[in-house]
């Protein structure tokens, strides 16, 4: 009997064994991972040194600043002799002692370090006192006798524009302006089926960062070294050198650990003053710090804006025209006001398609605190207006608010206010994501007593990141390997809590296939790092992120070259991942990058690369405000707030909050989440409670008893939705996150109040009294703040 051969045994085993490589699934990249904060441990354990921590442990002498007693006055004389008699005082310095230009100011250099002949606000500095103890310095300061001839205080925009107003500067009280002319807004408004108008008044806001201004300085005869917290150490170095008449290379600025900035450290605080004291006392370390009251009284603030807004549309809801006139309280000096004004105007119609736009923005000097940079930078106040107008229009049209937005939001290929075409516009996607979460989630609503009403509001905004408008905007970075096997990133950029160190480290590590644990960052030291621009304008992820990625990818080429000689394949056939150089094809073979680095150093490679990222934007046309590329790229965001309003007391509670941000790519999702949550908290603060109250040029609430910040109880858990529509120009597709969380939050909350009450708010903050006054306008009393006492002028200055 013929036998057939037995069939081969059936097994589960595949015929070809998979190779025993650990890389069947690629390991997660450091980009996109919520890696632990590089500075986390030292900050939560208290080991990190903030500026005030140097104090007084390293100080030989203590300095303090005498500030003006008057909001507006001629200074007749400053008698420092009594101060010199105070025990412990070793020096008192006034403007005559300042060796340089004695000027600071990021744009106009108009702010005296020490006033010469005229004080313009109560925070103006008159003298620096140096003593052997802080209390002696304070006693010396209080002993100085200043004689003034008081001048009328220009306390408000209205005061400043009054026909007989005293001139604060030789050219008058209008600092400058910005305009947009697109189409024919007047005609389009005349032809519109519906027109809505409103005057908004936003408040002055303080940055309220935790870590008040402090610093130490030392002059050894060659270099003036200043440790103080800013937002752009290289610019600070330039300004300090100019003001003190030193060559730039004799000034070094080093940033200590920093607790928040929010734009409040863009202008110089006490850096020049402590530097001056150091110059006068060579070889001594001088320390100077503010207390909270001085921090609030001296520092610039967010601009209070009065915005007249008229919006026209067709009967079907299609927007046809916007006419916007804005007056901005610039306070005593320009600060970054000119740039804030420009940002306000270029964001005047937000993310909407509006064919006819007419915008005039005026900055007006007063004797209030200078106003300058703060998270949102003018775009924030305008969002209050345009988002408020969309809801007013929806009511008037009887149209759904969300539908009206969807109909008018720019789509990819449409243009925003400046005429810039947006290649990838994702406002609609953000709005839809937020609405979807709102309608398909959330806890069941608790029933309310009759005097409480619930409402929800939505906002959609766009934001141009970077300085924009043709202003030079560049970041430099270095990436290198060290002999001890670390990947080191060098950047001049400032970390003030936002997570910059992780951003640069994760980008470099991802590019070089290194674990994040092997990355270190050297940052914000003009003696060791290259200029990376300011940590502001939501720009560092895009700008410094790109510079780091460029440097890292060039360094990668060197490592690949070295790896080629170890793995005996062409460098193109090698990938770097998880600390290894691995062959791409065939049986994977690998060699640790650390070995390649060691070998590279032995063979004379430098393994250190520097790179520059400097994309161009184009200036907005002076007459029309139009520019094909006003900003390098735009961010889109949508928020939803649900509130409960007590209609009898005016108290507002935010019950639920949803925030959707298209960040391009979240380099560190946890940091992105943190930025969004923090920005929302700050936005709720601006919408409901924060307010600097000025009286005759004096801040009446320069403390945390009366400057009301939101607490945990005021901010519900923020439900964040992160969209990642990659930006073609961003590092790993990233755009950024920084300012928009705050910008979108304010109008979302205000629109929710509008929905709950049926009456639209127009003045921020909507504290209980203001909400109550909305419902009882006959009871409205002029607030204590003199800036809001008169009706807004509708005339142009």
């Amino acid at each position: 009997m013929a036998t057939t051969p037995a069939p081969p045994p059936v097994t589960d085993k595949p015929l070809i064994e998979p190779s025993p490589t650990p890389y069947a699934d690629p390991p997660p990249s450091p980009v996109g991972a919520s890696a632990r904060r590089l500075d986390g441990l030292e900050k939560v354990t208290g080991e990190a040194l903030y500026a005030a921590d140097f104090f007084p442990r390293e100080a030989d002498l203590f300095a303090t600043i005498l500030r003006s007693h008057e909001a507006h006055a001629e200074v007749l004389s400053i008698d420092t002799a009594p101060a010199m008699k105070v025990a412990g005082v070793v020096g008192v310095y006034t403007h005559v002692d300042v060796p340089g230009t004695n000027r600071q100011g990021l744009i106009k250099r108009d702010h005296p370090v020490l006033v010469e002949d005229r004080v313009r606000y109560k925070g103006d500095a008159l003298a620096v006192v140096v003593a052997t103890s802080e209390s002696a310095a304070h006693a010396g300061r209080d002993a100085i006798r200043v004689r003034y001839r008081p001048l009328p205080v220009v306390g408000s925009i209205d005061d400043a524009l009054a026909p007989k107003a005293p001139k604060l500067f030789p050219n008058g009280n209008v600092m400058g302006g910005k305009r947009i002319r697109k189409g024919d807004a007047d005609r389009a408004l005349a032809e519109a089926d519906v027109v809505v108008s409103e005057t908004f008044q936003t408040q002055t806001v303080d940055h309220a960062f935790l870590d008040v201004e402090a610093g130490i300085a030392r002059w050894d005869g060659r270099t003036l070294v200043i440790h103080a917290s800013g937002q752009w150490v290289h610019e600070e170095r330039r300004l300090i050198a100019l003001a003190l008449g030193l060559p730039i290379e004799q000034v070094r600025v080093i940033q200590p650990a920093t607790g928040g900035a929010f734009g409040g450290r863009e202008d110089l605080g006490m850096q020049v003053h402590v530097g001056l004291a150091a110059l006068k006392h060579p070889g001594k370390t001088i320390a100077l710090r503010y207390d909270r009251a001085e921090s609030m009284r001296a520092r610039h603030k967010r601009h209070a804006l009065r915005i007249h807004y008229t919006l026209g549309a067709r009967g079907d809801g299609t927007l046809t025209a916007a006419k916007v006139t804005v007056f901005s309280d610039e306070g005593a000096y320009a600060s970054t006001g000119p740039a804030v004004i420009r940002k306000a105007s270029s964001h005047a119609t937000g993310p909407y398609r509006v064919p006819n736009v007419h915008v005039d923005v005026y900055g007006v000097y007063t004797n209030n605190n200078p106003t300058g940079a703060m998270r949102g930078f003018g775009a924030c106040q305008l969002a209050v207006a345009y988002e408020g107008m969309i809801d007013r229009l929806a009511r008037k049209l009887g149209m759904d608010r969300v539908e009206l937005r969807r109909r008018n939001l720019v789509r990819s290929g449409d243009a925003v206010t400046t005429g810039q075409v947006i290649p990838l516009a994702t406002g609609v996607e953000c709005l839809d994501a937020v609405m979807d979460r709102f309608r398909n989630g959330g806890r069941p609503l608790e029933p309310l007593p009759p005097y409480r009403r619930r409402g929800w509001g939505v906002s959609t905004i766009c934001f141009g990141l970077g300085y924009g408008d043709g202003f030079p905007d560049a970041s430099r970075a270095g990436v290198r390997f060290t002999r001890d096997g670390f990947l080191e990133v060098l950047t001049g950029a400032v970390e003030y809590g936002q997570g910059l160190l992780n951003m640069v480290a994760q980008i470099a590590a991802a590019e070089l296939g290194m674990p994040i644990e092997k990355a270190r960052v050297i940052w914000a030291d003009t003696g060791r790092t290259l200029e990376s621009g300011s940590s502001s304008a939501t720009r560092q992820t895009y700008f410094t992120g790109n510079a780091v990625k460029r440097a890292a990818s060039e360094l990668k080429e060197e490592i690949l070259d070295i790896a080629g000689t170890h793995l005996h394949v062409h460098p193109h056939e090698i990938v770097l991942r998880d600390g290894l150089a691995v062959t791409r094809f065939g049986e994977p073979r690998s060699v640790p990058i650390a070995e390649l680095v060691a070998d590279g150093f032995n063979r004379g490679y430098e393994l250190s690369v520097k790179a520059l990222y400097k994309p161009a934007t184009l200036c907005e046309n002076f007459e029309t405000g139009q520019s094909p590329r006003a900003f390098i790229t735009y961010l889109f965001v949508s928020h939803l707030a649900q509130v409960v309003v007590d209609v009898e007391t005016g108290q507002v509670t935010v019950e639920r909050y949803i925030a959707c941000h298209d960040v391009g790519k979240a380099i560190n999702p946890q940091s992105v989440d943190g930025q969004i949550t923090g920005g929302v908290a700050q936005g709720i603060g601006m919408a409901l409670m924060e307010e600097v109250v000025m009286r005759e040029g004096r801040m009446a609430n320069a403390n945390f008893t009366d400057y009301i910040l939101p607490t945990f109880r005021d901010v519900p858990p923020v439900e964040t939705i992160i969209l990642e529509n990659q930006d073609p120009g961003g590092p790993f597709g990233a755009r950024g996150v920084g300012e928009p969380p705050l910008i979108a939050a304010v109008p979302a909350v205000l629109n929710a109040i509008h929905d709950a009450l049926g009456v639209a708010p127009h003045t921020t903050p909507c504290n209980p009294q203001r909400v109550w006054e909305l419902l009882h306008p006959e009871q409205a009393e002029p607030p204590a703040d003199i800036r809001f006492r008169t009706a807004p002028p509708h005339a142009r200055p």
Partner: protein
Amino acid sequence: MLYQPQILEEALTLKADLGGDVDALAGGTDLLVALSRGQWRPKNVLDLSRVVERSEIRKADSRFSLAHGVTHAQLTRLPVRALAEAALSIGGPQIRNRGTLAGNLGTASPAGDGCVALLALHAEMELTRAGRGSRRLPVRDFFLDYRRTELRPEELITRVVVPADWTSAWHKIGKRGSVNISVVCAAVARSPQGRFGVAFGSVGPYPLTAPKTEALLNAAALTPELIDEAAAMAQTEVSPISDHRASAAYRRAMCGTLLRRLLTEHFLNGRD
């Protein structure tokens, strides 16, 4: 000089001897703020926070007798609704753990939440001077003018006595959800016999009572109409000012609103 007695008698003797030259310090939540603002420059400090039995709460004859060092955190658990809710509305957890009711009275701020609850409850306080014994005083007689009280330099507040069997309720309007200074606050209390107490905070130079409103409420059965009348009356009894916290008009109106709400929700139809 810092004195830190552990026995009340010792503290009282020091206070009687040094009078105005020594300042009592309880939780320090008011005094330390004043210190850092340069508004408090003490010669000598009498720290009461080590005195034994300072936190004692006794109940007798349907009254709670609270020792001088009872904190707001302790009061949040006291079954006296207006006082417990007032205590819970003060500061945040850290402040409630340190701050005391005696300190709240000592500061006599117009916005003193604890003071307002005590006024509505017709509470009494005990002021003691070593060698002379104690005097009992209705809290209603304690406040004289802006931050001026009946307390003499040689005395300490030793006890506060509150009724345990009154119905009471409390409401505060501030600008945020926690660590929240009163823009207006109100307390209402009613004895088992039907006697009312009504008090307001932040609407006058010191925590205020509303005697005419109380008389109105004491005179007739509570009805929605009477509540409206009382709310209108209360607005005439307060004397708020406009400042950076709120306008006088708002504060005045809120006194009516809060009174109406408290009476309607907690007292009408025998609720609570």
